[in-house]
């Protein structure tokens, strides 16, 4: 049986762990609200852009712009978005597992696969694998803003136009609700007109002209998509951390309860044993 002191030390240790998990949960909850608001306020822009883009693309020849042109795919690039930090349940593991499956599938189908990573967890993971990330963006989630989406967007557009790859996929956690994230994989390039948006009827007058407007719009569309994925992932991470830390705090509480029980039982046993000793000793003295 473990000694009293030993149990006491263990309880203290679990208690301080619980303090940390509770604090982390609280911090995540507070940040989550802001992250959710950001997704909501970024939506109108993305939706309007999708609507405009769809009506524009219908009227043009797809070969006219390199970002629309469908090449025969041989090289595929995957952008993996994870968090910078752990302690958020299966959030990162889900993404990384899906990434490996994707890479294996595409390789078996005869494609060459390259990757880029966003987030420290993805970088550390692929550092130990046989596939070296072409580009890495880490530690951006603390100060996430549109400039990050623009930077990543411009990088991949440049590479795509140079024909370093023929298709580009984006792998990230989509924010479904506070409790739930969904692993999403979107094809970003070549640009496919979004399906589920209302179509605008009638034609427009373009200024300077259709091609120029399209050339301006398409890169912005890619940037906006990347930015949206980053926001989703950021909110998802906080949601996942909140849930994970809540569970951890509860488990810690349960452990403390059980150990306290053992502690009290042991303490009682010790007292009883001491009493017996005293009583036994007194009996012996009197007898003698």
């Amino acid at each position, binding site marked *: 049986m473990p000694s009293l002191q030993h149990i006491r030390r263990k309880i203290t240790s679990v208690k301080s762990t619980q303090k940390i998990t509770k604090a982390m949960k609280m911090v995540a909850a507070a940040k989550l609200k802001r992250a959710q608001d950001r997704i909501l306020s970024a939506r109108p*822009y993305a939706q309007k852009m999708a609507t405009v883009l769809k009506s524009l693309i219908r009227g043009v020849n797809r070969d006219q712009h390199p970002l629309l042109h469908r090449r025969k795919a041989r090289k595929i690039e995957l952008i993996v978005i994870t968090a910078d930090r752990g302690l958020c349940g299966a959030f990162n593991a889900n993404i990384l597992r899906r990434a490996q499956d994707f890479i294996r599938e595409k390789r078996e189908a005869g494609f060459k696969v390259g990757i880029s990573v966003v987030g420290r967890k993805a970088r550390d993971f692929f550092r130990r694998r046989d596939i070296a990330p072409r580009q890495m963006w880490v530690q951006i989630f603390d100060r996430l*803003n*549109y400039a990050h989406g623009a930077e990543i967007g411009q990088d991949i557009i440049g590479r795509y136009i140079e024909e370093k790859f023929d298709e580009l996929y984006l792998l990230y956690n989509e924010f479904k609700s506070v409790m739930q994230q969904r692993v999403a994989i979107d094809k970003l390039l070549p640009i496919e007109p979004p399906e589920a948006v209302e179509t605008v009827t009638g034609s427009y007058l*373009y*200024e*300077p002209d259709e091609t120029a*407007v399209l050339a301006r719009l398409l890169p*912005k569309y890619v940037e906006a998509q990347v930015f949206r994925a980053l926001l989703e992932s950021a909110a998802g991470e906080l949601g996942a951390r909140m849930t994970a830390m809540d569970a951890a705090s509860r488990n810690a509480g349960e452990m403390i309860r059980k150990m306290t029980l053992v502690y009290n039982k042991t303490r009682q046993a010790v007292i009883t044993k001491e009493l017996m000793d005293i009583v036994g000793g007194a009996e012996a003295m009197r007898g003698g």
Partner: protein
Amino acid sequence: MPGQIQFDLATPERLLVSEPVDEVIAPGSEGEFGVLAGHCRFMTTLRIGELRYRKGTEWKRLSVSWGYAEVEPQRITVLAEIAERAEEIDLPRAEAAVKTAEQQIAATTGKHEEMAAARRQLEKALLRLKVGKKR
């Protein structure tokens, strides 16, 4: 007097304006243009500039940098990469930005791209200053 039109201005970060207005004047890449209700369908890219809109007799100003506008008879939608209301512009910061941009231009080594980027910075900073001062 023509009726009002729905004016939406969205940036990647937020929906900045969404209300019925009487008139919008925006900096198109081919020149400034005004929109009243019943305008023909029209789409244009925007340059860095000042965007104004009127509700009744009150004009409001915004600085916008890059983007495009979609005009329909009953609505105008502006998607701008950066947009700020005149009253939100922080003047001392805008002035500092102008100085930094000027220094950058002076310090460029004459490479074309560098120069163009620095110029854009300066243009943006000057615009913010101009719009901010008019509030």
